[in-house]
């Protein structure tokens, strides 16, 4: 097995600017590592790699270091998986781990498909609980069950804050708009009516 692994760390906005209109406005946000990327970092540690290289937006790389990465490569934040993939290190055959990132602008699956095609790498989809040995030159998409993805290692915080990270660049031309305040639909009635309404709703959601 390779000694080094690359882990794509997705930056997820925590607080959005009030007047957000374009993807590029995200440059004014605060960020943290996405849940799926925490799972991906945790997977890399579980697999016993000595060197874990975090790839991602500069504003989350310190957190990635505190979560177990040993070094980093910064890259812009993109709204397009092909453009994001273009910033991955070239001419390297180390495995690349990606989280599902279903809550981001593009999913980890799309990014994995782009990388597998552009690098002609085998792509493996792994369940968190069943990690296996990984070969060089492969892309690993790690599923995210939503469960606790591990905490920050407080012993690594000093190291992580010592790192000087590049300034942030946000690339993309998609537009963003606030979703209007959501209203809860309160359903009432006798039990048979409730069952009928909820079953129809579930069937529609899960079709």
């Amino acid at each position: 097995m390779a000694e080094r692994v690359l882990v794509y760390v997705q930056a997820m906005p925590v607080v959005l600017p009030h007047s957000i209109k374009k993807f590029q406005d995200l440059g004014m946000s605060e960020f943290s590592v996405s849940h799926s990327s925490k799972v991906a970092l945790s997977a890399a540690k579980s697999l016993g790699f000595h060197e874990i290289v975090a790839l991602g937006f500069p504003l989350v790389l310190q957190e990635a270091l505190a979560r177990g990465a040993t070094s980093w490569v910064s890259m812009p934040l993109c709204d397009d998986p092909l453009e994001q993939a273009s910033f991955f290190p070239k001419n390297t055959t180390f495995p690349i781990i990606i989280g599902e990132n279903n809550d981001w602008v593009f999913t980890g699956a799309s990014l994995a498909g782009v990388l597998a095609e552009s690098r002609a790498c085998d792509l493996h989809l792994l369940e968190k609980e069943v990690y296996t040995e990984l070969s060089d030159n492969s892309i690993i998409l790690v599923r995210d069950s939503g469960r606790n993805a591990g905490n920050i290692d407080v012993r690594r915080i000093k190291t992580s804050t010592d790192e000087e990270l590049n300034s942030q660049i946000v690339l993309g031309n998609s537009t963003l708009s606030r979703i209007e305040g959501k209203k809860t639909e309160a359903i009432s009635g006798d039990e048979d009516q409730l069952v009928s309404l909820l079953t129809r709703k579930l069937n529609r959601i899960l079709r």
Partner: protein
Amino acid sequence: MNILIVVFCELGGKNLLSKAREIADLSGDRVSAFISQDNINPQELIYYGADQVEVCNVQERTDWINIISSYLEENNVKCALFPSNILSNIIMGAVYSRDRSRIASYSDEANLLEGTYSSKSLKALGVALRRDFDSEKCCLVSLRVSSLPEPFEDTSRYGNIHPRKMTPKTSNYQISLQNQADAPSLSGELTVLIGSGIGDRTNELCAKLAEQYGGKCIKFSGSVETIYGPCVAVEIGNRLSDLPVFNDELISISSKKLPICSVADTATICEDIDKILKGFLK
């Protein structure tokens, strides 16, 4: 040359045909559906809205990348639609990587598609992301099937069925899944989230409900941090700050008004929860 809307009808994609038909009827485009030789009745896809069905000789998952890429190269395709799940998004990403010059926009997990744009709701962030299409080039969109209305089957429709006899170029890589049985339902599965104070009988009914819909049943604890697919929350009494992040539709069922009711998409309060759950299982 006709302008085409291509629909990938594997992995639940046939449900996208009604949407493709709706757009095509407004714009005068034609709808072309893709399926493998050992899946779905091709005639059914015509009833759902396809003008032509391409029945493809597929051996490996990566063959789809070759087949769809070749089709985009040979035809004037305005839009290629995929059902949003992990496998489809991988295939769509690979097609995008191969045919960048022909593709103007890429959108996965979209929940709204109109003739000129797609939109994706990022619920946890409280924003929607919109991508406008380019009239000169193709757009790739994977759509959440749950965001679409029930497909309409019109048995009076006519169309063509073509066996696609192309020999796919062999890709020099593989897509492998640990659990092959999971392939069609890799994304958006139901989570039944149960509160800590409910009895064994209710627990059992929740487990059966999850099983019936091919989902999972989990007891809520601090270790559950985020839920991606739709969720039925049963008697979750925690404070709002202790709840996980819900990224999809949330239905709350409880015996009294609880904080979760204020953030749920649908909330129902009833005294006999077991009766409701049993009703689901009929």
